[in-house]
């Protein structure tokens, strides 16, 4: 993770476009300027960034389902539960499953586990739209390579 750059996914472990699931690795850094303020003397991974990690994992799953043709944008959150603290240096596993693929939107359920224990979960709604422009898509391609997105498993990747 590079929290300051919203790079919350380190590696895609498994992307299953038949089961509509994804599993990713996300390692909380030992140090970050974010921890200087959140909180002084007691650094904690901000809950909103845990939500963002679940959204990003879900997002890559949706991108995979669209054959890298569409971009999901976070639209709504339901049933968000932040169950326990996450601290610097912890290794997280984020999983997500698509609950519904609508026309121009998608719903997922996602969760994060640390040492096998669930630390948070949520139901997430995305608007799914065309990539805003070629540069945006090229950037997403770069990110995909960095996090080992299995482009070979995507029909039109």
């Amino acid at each position, binding site marked *: 993770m590079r929290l300051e750059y919203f790079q919350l996914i380190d590696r895609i472990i498994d992307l299953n476009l038949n089961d509509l699931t994804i599993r990713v690795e996300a390692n909380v850094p030992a140090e970050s300027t974010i921890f200087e303020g959140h909180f002084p003397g007691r650094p904690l991974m901000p809950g909103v960034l845990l939500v963002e990690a679940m959204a990003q994992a879900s997002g890559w799953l949706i991108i995979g389902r669209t054959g890298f043709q569409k971009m999901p944008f976070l639209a709504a959150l339901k049933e968000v539960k932040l169950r326990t603290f996450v601290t610097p240096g912890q290794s997280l596993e984020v999983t997500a499953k698509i609950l*519904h693929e*609508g*026309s121009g*939107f998608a*719903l997922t359920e996602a969760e994060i586990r640390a040492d096998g224990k669930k630390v948070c979960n949520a139901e997430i*709604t995305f*608007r799914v739209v065309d990539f805003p422009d070629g540069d945006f898509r090229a950037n997403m391609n770069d990110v995909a390579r960095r996090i080992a997105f299995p482009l070979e498993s995507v029909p039109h990747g």
Partner: protein
Amino acid sequence: MPSTFETVANIISETCDIPRDTITAESHAIDDLGIDSLDFLDIAFAIDKAFGIKLPLEQWTQVVNDGKATTEQYFVLKNLCARIDDLVAAKAK
């Protein structure tokens, strides 16, 4: 078995916390009931699930944006229900 309109009206009422008795077949989901696009995603999800279809929202939006149809043709509830019935019938073929 409830009618398509009854099902849709109940979905709208429960999803958007709109009193059921204010929702009529002539209601425009956007102009009369004040449903915004984000709330409509929840409604679309519930309709998709209830009827086993996929409302073609992207196509409808494109048609309206192109000036080839009005929002009334899709979002007045009696018209929305007619389109749902068409989608259900098409799926059954």
